[in-house]
């Protein structure tokens, strides 16, 4: 049925696949901003945006449901950002000012290449992950590319040539660099486990790999220990990773970067229209990728429930011989989990107050980092004794 697809040149297929992933991710990242407003409204017991509708569509019966969900508000906001005058203030460093939002988007959309987002069962009965580039260095590539995101913030703060953006840029870069350490240390026990003594009796050669797909394979083995998600095996690692993830994506309660009470709008103060919205789409793209990594590492990736794997479900419901159906179900489960995680991000945002900046630094360096090191040492000794 799809044979014609495999006859076109390899590089065209790669471009098509990359564009397809981006065309799904970009609108989801944009739609998150509307979801944020609706969820904020529900938590604060008010309806939120619910009136916008295109005049012609208003006559379609039953469309009021979408209207009340604020779906047309999203379209109107998007259109507004595209058509608004894109003013550049006279006192900024123009080159870097315009480059900063573009630099924000590049790492946010590049990291997705190393993130597997589904799996299917091939004719040999083997589970194959769906990913743009199944590299052995998986998590390292994601961390390396996403660490470049700090330059967007630094440049935006510096090029704006005014005080509050500059303070915000300095704060943001210090925060990003501080929490990167804890984040990297917190995932090491997972990879020690997947490459440790238990890995030898696992199917396939697992040793010496940082691939994210293999972490998921490791969580979908048979037996009690094989099927357990890593959230049960390493809750402290998951907690440290989660806290660092909130700080890395500049989300509440680590929202000191753009704390509007003391920094106006921080590094975005001088930005408007399309450039401003690019920063926010990049932030949501970072959240999506971060949530995806969290789900892959600690929540079993595309497996629906702990101890119940995707291939179990596929065999039980009898679509295991249809790779496309299995793939769509796998991607659906995974995207559903990631969106649930995004909801969690927003829930926390409207529940917890913001930390003060000195508290952010104290938590990062004096509490989270020692905890991450102790966690790593404990698991290293434990895994060595196994």
């Amino acid at each position, binding site marked *: 049925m799809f044979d014609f697809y495999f006859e076109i040149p390899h590089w065209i297929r790669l471009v098509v696949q990359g564009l397809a992933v981006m065309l799904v991710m970009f609108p989801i990242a944009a739609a998150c901003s509307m979801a944020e407003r609706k969820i904020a409204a529900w938590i604060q017991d008010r309806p939120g945006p619910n009136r916008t509708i295109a005049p012609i569509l208003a006559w379609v019966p039953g469309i009021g449901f979408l209207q009340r969900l604020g779906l047309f508000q999203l379209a109107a906001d998007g259109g507004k950002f595209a058509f608004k005058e894109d003013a550049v203030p006279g006192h900024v460093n123009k080159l870097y000012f315009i480059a900063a939002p573009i630099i924000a988007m590049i790492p946010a959309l590049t990291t997705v290449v190393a993130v597997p987002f589904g799996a299917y069962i091939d004719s040999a009965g083997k589970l194959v992950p769906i990913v743009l580039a199944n590299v052995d260095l998986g998590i390292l590539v994601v961390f*390396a590319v996403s660490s470049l995101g700090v330059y967007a913030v630094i440049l935006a703060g510096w090029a704006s040539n005014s005080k509050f953006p500059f303070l915000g840029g300095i704060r943001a870069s210090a925060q990003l660099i501080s929490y990167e350490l804890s984040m990297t240390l917190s995932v090491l026990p997972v990879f020690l486990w997947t490459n440790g003594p238990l890995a030898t009796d696992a199917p396939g050669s697992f040793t010496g790999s940082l691939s994210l797909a293999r972490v998921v394979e490791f969580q979908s083995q048979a037996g009690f220990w094989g099927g357990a998600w890593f959230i049960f095996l390493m809750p402290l690692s998951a907690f440290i990773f989660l806290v660092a993830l909130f700080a890395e994506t500049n989300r509440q309660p680590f929202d000191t970067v753009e704390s509007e009470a003391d920094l106006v709008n921080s590094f975005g103060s001088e930005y408007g229209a399309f450039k401003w919205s690019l920063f926010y789409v990049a932030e949501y793209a970072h959240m999506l990728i971060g949530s995806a990594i969290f789900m892959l590492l600690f929540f079993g990736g595309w497996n629906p429930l702990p101890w119940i794997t995707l291939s179990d479900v596929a065999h039980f419901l009898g679509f295991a011989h249809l790779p496309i159906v299995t793939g769509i179900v796998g991607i659906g489960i995974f995207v559903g989990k990631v969106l649930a995680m995004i909801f969690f991000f927003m829930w926390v945002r409207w529940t917890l107050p913001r930390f003060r900046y000195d508290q952010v630094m104290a938590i990062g360096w004096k509490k989270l980092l020692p905890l991450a090191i102790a966690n790593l040492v404990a698991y290293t000794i434990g895994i060595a004794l196994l």
Partner: protein
Amino acid sequence: MSPDILFYFFAALTAGSALAVVLNKNTIASALCLLVSLVGVAAIFVLLDAFLLAALMVFVYAGAVVALFLFIVMLLDTYGGDRKPFKKATIVSSGFALALLVLGLVTFADRGALETPAAEASATAVVPVGASLRAYGEQLFTTYLLPVQIVGFLLLIAMLGVIVLSKKFEGLEDVK
């Protein structure tokens, strides 16, 4: 696109931006050129199949070290500051050094020869050390164990030095 074209492209990018680091008058622009240069080096590592080294290059140098450079530059001087023009002695001596380097390279290309690896070694398809984490880790903990330990101690000494220099000793009670 053959790897050769890519190599020339990234080599030109690396060398060109490295030159821009020195010649740029604005210190922030210099730091950003250093960033581009390091990414170019990482790309050349990828062309050499040393994927791990490429990832580490981006992660450690491009991701953290240059960010700290920028940080320091911005804290010391908010607007990046214009560098003073080069002194005549600096220009002359750097031109002399460049001429020596070019002379050395030309002589090497003309008369010297790199030791070509033995035929059977290339036939067995040795895995490049920098390609995978496993190969790299095994080398670090066997063949290169002593250099790793020495570098570790050097870094520790540097770290202690930074702590001593940056900590404000009130009175002298802390030192005792």
